[in-house]
C-alpha cells in the first residue's frame, strides 16, 4: 500500500515523456538554481564593477559567431559584452547571470520562513480550535487584507533597504497564505480514521498533531510554495524598480530594469530587456512547476 503523505520522487517526473512544457519548467528552474550558486563567479566581468565602456550595444546576431570564435581562441584583449553595457558601464550579461544569487535567495529564504511559521501556526489553529486560535485567524485575516505590494514597500522602506528586510517583508505578506492552507488541510485530516487509530493506540494529542496530522497536511502548502517563489521574485524586482528594494550596485533583475528604464525611451533597449527576459522566464518556470504539482496532487 502506498503511503499518501510522502511525496515520491517519481511523482515529480513528467508522466508522459513528451511533456515539453514540464521539461521547459524544470530546465529553467534548474538553470536559475545553478546560477544562484555559481552565477557571480562565472561571468566575464565583475558584476559590481563598472567598465570604461558606457552604453555599449550588444553585438548584432551576425557578429556573434565570429566574436565567439575570437573569444574562444583567445585573440581578444577583453571578453565581449554579450548583452552590452548600461549607462554606468556595467556589463549586462555578467549582472544578469549574477542576479539569481540575489533574487532567488531572497525568494527562497522568504518562502522558507513563511512556510515554517505558517505551517506551524496553521497546524495549531486547525488542530486546537478555541478562542485563542480563532483570534489568531482573525489577525491572519487582517494581515491578508493588506495590499501586498504597498505593505512590502512600507516594510522595506521604513525598516531600511537591505536584503534581510526584504526577506522579512516578503515572509510577512506570505505567511497568512500558508496559515490558511495548512489550517484547512489539518481540519480535514484530523477527523480521518488514522487519527482515531493513533489515539486508540494511546498517542498523546501533541504527538498525533505533529507525527500524524502534520505530514499529511503539508502538500497544499508545498505546492503553493512553488508558485509563491515565482511571485516573490516578481515582488523583489518590483520593489527595486520603485526604489524600495536592494541598493545599487547589487546585481538584481528589477534594479537593472529600473536603471535601464530612462534609456529605453531613447532607444537603448538592452540594459532593461535582458534582465526582463530572465525574470519573465524564471517566474514562468516556477508557475509551470507549481501547476504540474497541483495537477498531480488533484489527480491522486
Amino acid at each position: 500500500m502506498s503511503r499518501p503523505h510522502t511525496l515520491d520522487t517519481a511523482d515529480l517526473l513528467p508522466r508522459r515523456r513528451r511533456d515539453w512544457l514540464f521539461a521547459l519548467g524544470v530546465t529553467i528552474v534548474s538553470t536559475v538554481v545553478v546560477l544562484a550558486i555559481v552565477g557571480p563567479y562565472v561571468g566575464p566581468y565583475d558584476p559590481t564593477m563598472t567598465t570604461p565602456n558606457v552604453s555599449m550595444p550588444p553585438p548584432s546576431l551576425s557578429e556573434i559567431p565570429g566574436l565567439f570564435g575570437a573569444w574562444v581562441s583567445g585573440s581578444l584583449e577583453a571578453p565581449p559584452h554579450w548583452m552590452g553595457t548600461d549607462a554606468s558601464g556595467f556589463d549586462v550579461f555578467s549582472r544578469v547571470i549574477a542576479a539569481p544569487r540575489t533574487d532567488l535567495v531572497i525568494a527562497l529564504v522568504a518562502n522558507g520562513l513563511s512556510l515554517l511559521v505558517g505551517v506551524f501556526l496553521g497546524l495549531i489553529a486547525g488542530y486546537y480550535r478555541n478562542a485563542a486560535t480563532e483570534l489568531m485567524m482573525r489577525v491572519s485575516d487582517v494581515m491578508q487584507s493588506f495590499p501586498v505590494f504597498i505593505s512590502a514597500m512600507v516594510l522595506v522602506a521604513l525598516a531600511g533597504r537591505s536584503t534581510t528586510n526584504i526577506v522579512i517583508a516578503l515572509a510577512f505578506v506570505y505567511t497568512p497564505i500558508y496559515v490558511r492552507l495548512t489550517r484547512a488541510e489539518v481540519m480535514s485530516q484530523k477527523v480521518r480514521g488514522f487519527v482515531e487509530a493513533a489515539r486508540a493506540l494511546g498517542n498523546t494529542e501533541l504527538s498525533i498533531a505533529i507525527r500524524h496530522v502534520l505530514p499529511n497536511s503539508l502538500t497544499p502548502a508545498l505546492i503553493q510554495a512553488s508558485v509563491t517563489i515565482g511571485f516573490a521574485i516578481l515582488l523583489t524586482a518590483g520593489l527595486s524598480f520603485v526604489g524600495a528594494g536592494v541598493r545599487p550596485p547589487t546585481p538584481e533583475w528589477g534594479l537593472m530594469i529600473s536603471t535601464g528604464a530612462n534609456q529605453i525611451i531613447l532607444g537603448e533597449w538592452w540594459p532593461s530587456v535582458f534582465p526582463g527576459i530572465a525574470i519573465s522566464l524564471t517566474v514562468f518556470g516556477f508557475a509551470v512547476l507549481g501547476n504540474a504539482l497541483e495537477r498531480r496532487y488533484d489527480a491522486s
Partner: protein
Amino acid sequence: MLFRYIAKRFAVGLLQLIGLTIAVFFLIRLLPADPVSRLVGMNASPEAYAQAAKQLGVDRPLLAQLATYLGFQPDIAPGLLQGSLGVSWVTGSTITSEIATYLPVTIELVTLSFILALAVAVPIGMFGALNPGGKADKGVFVYSLFAGSQPEFWWGLLFVYLFFFTLGIAPAPLGRLSPMSSPPDAVTGFMTIDALIAGQLDIFVEALHHLMLPVITMAFILSGPIIKMVRQNMARALQSDFVLYANCAGLPKERVARYALRAAMAPSMTLIGILYGFMLSGAVLTESVFALGGIGQYSISAVLAYDYPAIQAVVLVITAISLVVYLALDLIHAAIDPRIAF
C-alpha cells in the same frame, strides 16, 4: 435572510477595517525609521528637531496619537470619526483631498484594463474549454500560465520601446495628457469622463491615447488568471447534467455554450473581485512606468518620504475599496444563487 447576510458581511468587513487601521498604525511606528529627521534633515539642530516633532505630534505618547488619528480628540485635530484622514507631513494639505485627486486615475486605469481583459479573455477561455485536450486548448493554457506570471513593469517598458520609440504610434510615457494640453475641469477626476463633460472631444481622444499602452500592459497581465478561471469553470459547467440534457435535447452548440458560460461566470465573480482589489495596489508599477500619477505613485512618494498619515490613508482606502467590491460581488452572487445566503 438576505438582509441578515448583508448585515453580517458588513459587520465583519467593518471589524476587519478597524483591525487593519490599528495594525497599520502600530506597525509603521514599530519600524526603525525616523520621519522627523527625514523631514528636517540629518544636520538639523536639536531645537529644530524638537520643534518639528512637536508640529507632527510625534512627541506625544503613542496611544494619544492613535486617539487623535481615530478621531476621539476632535479638539486637537479631526480624525477618522470626523471623516478626516489627516494632513500630509510633506505637503501640508489634507490627505482626503490628495486621495480624491490620485485615486480616480487608478480606478480609471484598472477599470478600463478589466474591461479590455474580460473582452479578450472570456472568449479565449471559452474557446479553450469548448475544445478540450486539443492543440489550441493547450496553447490557451500555456498562454494563461505565462501571462499570469509576468513582470508588468518590464512589459510596459517593452511596449514603450516598441510602440513609442520604434513605431511612433503611442505617446511618450509622460502622463495622462501631453504636456502641451490643458486638462478639463476636474469633476469626477476621471480624465476621459471629465473631457466628455467639458465637451472636449480632442482631449477625450488624447486621454484614451495616453491610456492605451498602460491599459494594454495591465490587461495582458490580467488576461492570464481570467482565462485560466473561465476555462476551468466553463469546463466544469460543460460536464454538468444540464449541459448533457441540453445536448440530448438537440439544442444548437452555440446556445449550449451560452448556457454553460452563464453557469461558469457566477463562481468567477468572486475571483474577479479579488483581482480588482489586488490590482488597485498592483497598478503601482504600471503607473510609475507611464508616470500616470495615481494612488500607487502617491503611495511610493509617501513611503519614500516617511509620510505616515499618507501611508496609513493609502492602505486604509485601498483595503476599504477592496472590501466594498468583495461585498458587492458577494451580494450579486447571492442574488444569482440564493443558496449562498443560507
